[in-house]
């Protein structure tokens, strides 16, 4: 038998190596000619993320400490001033409370609010998804109350629950509960009739249908609800800590602003942003761990 050497053809390693020099990403094997509008081609790119963050810092520096600063450091601190504020805060804390105490005060308020909002929201959402009557009863309440911004409720909540922790946590319950109700309702309503029918034909009773079909089927939606609610609650934090808080990232902003310490204000804003982004990252990791079937039915 003679050795058969195939002639180089398009798609061979040689050709691909040549093509990849023009490819937009390293290791790209695809020879797509249509990329605009192709969602699979739009993936997150670490490189561009660095460029974006770097650009942001560059602009910030340029406007505050550049050759011709156009922003006054008093009203808009530079990256250096903010960094110094951060170092002080990290080492000495602020107003007799350590950095960790401020952050954990805020985190624990948000988590308490989320916990209560979830404990109320999931059963109510499930009830709305399972019963015509309950849906009829709760629908107008949800639609009416959901758009009310938490801040609008603060004066009343302070009257009812005092200026202590209770009013703050309740405000965060408000921020999360409607999201959880709507997500849970959507999760329940999203179950396909054939899954429920199949389960009944396999001998499941109503309770088993709820436990083994409707609940797991709703989990992806419920988890999305948790992610959104966590984001909304974290965003409501500053409003919740507006009055009567000694500790907390939001509270620190108000206190610092009364002393015109914009560096501390800005530092806390950045911390709130970073913690928020980290929490979402953790939620996304949890999601891919706990709900691997998401979006694959």
């Amino acid at each position, binding site marked *: 038998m003679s050795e058969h050497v195939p002639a180089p053809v398009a798609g061979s390693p040689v050709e691909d190596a040549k093509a990849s020099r023009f490819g937009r990403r390293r290791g790209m094997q695809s020879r797509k000619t249509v990329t605009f509008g192709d969602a699979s081609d739009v993936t997150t790119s670490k490189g561009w993320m660095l460029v974006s963050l770097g650009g942001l810092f560059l602009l910030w520096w340029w406007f505050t400490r550049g050759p011709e600063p156009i922003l006054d450091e008093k009203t808009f601190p530079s990256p250096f001033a903010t960094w110094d504020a951060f170092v002080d805060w990290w080492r000495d804390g602020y107003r007799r409370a350590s950095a960790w105490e401020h952050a954990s005060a805020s985190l624990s308020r948000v988590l308490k609010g989320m916990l209560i909002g979830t404990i109320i929201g999931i059963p109510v959402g499930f009830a709305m998804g399972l019963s015509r009557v309950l849906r009829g009863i709760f629908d107008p309440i949800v639609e009416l109350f959901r758009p009310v911004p938490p801040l609008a409720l603060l004066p009343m909540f302070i009257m009812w629950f005092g200026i202590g922790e209770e009013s703050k946590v309740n405000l965060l319950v408000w921020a999360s509960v409607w999201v959880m109700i709507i997500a849970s309702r959507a999760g329940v309503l999203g179950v*396909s009739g*054939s*899954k429920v*029918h*199949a*389960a*009944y*034909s*396999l*001998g*499941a*009773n109503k309770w*088993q249908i709820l436990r*083994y*079909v409707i609940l*797991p*089927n709703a*989990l992806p939606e419920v988890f999305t609800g948790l992610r959104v609610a966590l984001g909304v609650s974290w965003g409501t934090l500053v409003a919740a800590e507006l009055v009567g808080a000694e500790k907390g990232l939001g509270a620190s902003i108000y206190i610092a602003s009364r002393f015109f310490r914009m560096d501390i204000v800005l530092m806390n804003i950045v911390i709130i942003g970073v913690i928020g982004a980290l929490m979402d990252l953790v939620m996304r990791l949890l999601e891919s761990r706990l*709900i*691997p*079937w998401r979006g*694959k*039915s």
Partner: protein
Amino acid sequence: MKDLSVQNVSMVYELPKGGSVQALHDVSFDLEAGRLLTLLGPSGCGKTTLLNIVAGFLAPSGGSVELGGTPITGPGQERGMVFQQGALFEWQNVAQNVAFGPRMNRRKRSETKALVDGLLNTVGLTGFGDKAIYELSGGMQQRVALARCLANEPEVILMDEPLGALDALTREKMQGLILKLWKETGKTIILVTHSVEEALFLGDKLFVMAPRPGRIEKAYELPFAEVGLTTDPRKLKASAEFIEKREELLSMIWGMEEQIMGHEGGMS
């Protein structure tokens, strides 16, 4: 073994905006235990409705359905169901899906495990127990659906276009599997299909259904399913007898389709 008896069943859907659709009109038939009945007909002739009534998901507006002399009033595990797709539980793996029925019945775990392994073997999925549903091809998913349905030992298996979403080759393979299961288990099967060839090949009894109102237009007793396992299916489908029946059914269904088109054309 229980015979299925469908007497004067009719179904009228009341439309929410007023008016109604007569999905089934005075459908009657008896199906002895162990038969494989295929239902064929253009869409909208009430095939799914009939299947859902037998499954117990719908109560007919008139008439009665009995299995072994017992009236059907709701879903029950003596009547298993295989859907076209999307009825598997994607949060469970293959083995857990198959074990769903026994688990709902609180059967012993050790028993169930042996049962599941046996069923996976029967449908040709040995070793796939730990796989996730979404990792499987469409054909494999339907194998899981078949195994899941068999786990509860139903008297009757109802299938609504079970192979409708599969490609032609996979479809032929699955037809062979359905015939094999029918022969080995001796279960009564009612299978809805759009494909004339499939209805002929699988059915040892075949109803052609017609729309407006949904009814049984013609009933056939067929020889092909009986020999489908021992003869080469390709040769069987190419035999003169098969082709003759196929053309007869095709022209009947074409006639109905044209009537429907004419009807709809007349309305616009």
